[in-house]
């Protein structure tokens, strides 16, 4: 691969599975405990209420409910742990010259390609559980991503670029920004042509437009005279030069500052020098 140095490739940290494990343990542990207490309480109510039939629901059934709920709890946690282990194994991302590739998915394999031109912002998220394991999640948000469609389908919103479980998110952020400025933002060599201080950009732009408009006023042209001398109509001239008639009209009115190439073409058709054709006043 020739672009080996330019690209950056990595996978996610194994702390991610520990974090997910802790998260689901706390969540499910809470649910399982609540469920057990609720069952025990219902059983207790049935037993105490139905005094006429004491022992109708033996205490063993209550224990059974306890055991089943905790077995399910442990099974879910184990499956979750295995799933996340596989998830980490299958998660790869590459930061290339003009796009990011994120490969993930345990059962359904997904390869997501995000071109830099569509990246809007990069968020580094550090949640409560993330902080315990010192990991970060990088979310790359893109312009007009199908968030609405995704949320309608899945019920939750995830940005297109979602890289969880990162030890050093700054590396990724830096790399992406580097690539973006290098390969997509501004064509090389034009950097200082783009107005540097952002707060001045608008003013510069307006004054540029105004100066362009004023430039035309400084030109005096004798196109009409030369054209009539050569016996060429304005429409013919426009056609020979390869511009709309409107342009020729603007030129003769002195409302338009032509490019040198256009001036040369007109001069060629009318067989004269540019200096004969235009005059700076």
């Amino acid at each position, binding site marked *: 691969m020739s672009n080996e140095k330019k690209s950056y490739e990595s996978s996610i940290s194994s702390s991610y599975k520990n974090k997910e494990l802790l998260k689901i343990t706390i969540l499910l542990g809470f649910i399982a405990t609540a469920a057990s207490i609720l069952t025990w309480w219902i059983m207790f109510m049935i037993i105490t209420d139905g005094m006429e039939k004491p022992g109708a629901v033996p205490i063993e059934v209550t224990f059974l409910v306890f055991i089943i709920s905790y077995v399910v709890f442990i099974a879910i946690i184990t499956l979750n742990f295995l799933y996340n282990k596989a998830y980490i194994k299958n998660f790869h991302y590459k930061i290339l010259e003009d796009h990011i590739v994120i490969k993930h998915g345990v059962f359904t394999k997904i390869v997501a390609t995000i071109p830099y031109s569509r990246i809007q912002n990069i968020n580094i998220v550090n949640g409560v559980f993330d902080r315990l394991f010192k990991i970060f999640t990088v979310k790359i948000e893109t312009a007009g991503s199908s968030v609405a469609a995704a949320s309608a389908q899945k019920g939750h919103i995830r940005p297109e670029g979602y890289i969880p479980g990162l030890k050093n998110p700054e590396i990724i952020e830096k790399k992406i920004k580097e690539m973006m400025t290098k390969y997509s933002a501004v064509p090389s060599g034009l950097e*200082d*042509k783009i107005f540097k201080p952002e707060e001045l950009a608008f003013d510069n732009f307006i004054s540029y437009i105004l100066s362009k408009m004023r*430039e*035309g006023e*400084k*030109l005096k042209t004798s196109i009409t005279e030369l054209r009539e001398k050569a016996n060429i109509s304005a429409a013919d001239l426009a*056609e*020979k030069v390869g511009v709309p008639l409107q342009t020729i009209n603007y030129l003769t009115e002195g409302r338009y*500052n*032509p*490019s*040198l*190439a*256009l*001036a*040369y073409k007109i001069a060629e058709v009318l067989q004269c*020098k*540019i*200096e004969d054709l*235009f005059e*700076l006043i």
Partner: protein
Amino acid sequence: MRFKKKIVSRIKQFREELELPQLELAKLVGVSRQTIYYLERGSYNPSLTISFKISEILKKPIHDIFYQEPVIKDILEGKSLAELREIAEIACINLEKLASLSEIDDEQLTKDFKEDTLIKIALELGIDFEDLFEKEAEN
């Protein structure tokens, strides 16, 4: 048949004759230094008012500072003799005739070269025919 032309600038040469730095010239013309840089490199088609100002400052007529040159001239000059020989062979003309392409004017071009010869040359150079020549508008 006509040559497609590009504008070649000799600002740098004239500027150096006057010992005028890029930045000074830019200030006198009222443009940024980058604009002068791009003009010198020839990768920028200036507006006529800028051209007039430059010609005024450098005290040279516009057609001396920005002269037009057939696009093909530069390309042919960049080729080695062996490459030129090969192109001439494929286009079924002799080497001298091929070399003359970078000297003749539009009138001579129409007289000397057939369109399909030029198409072959463009094809061999790996450049679109339309980028090298343009057909005369028919009246």
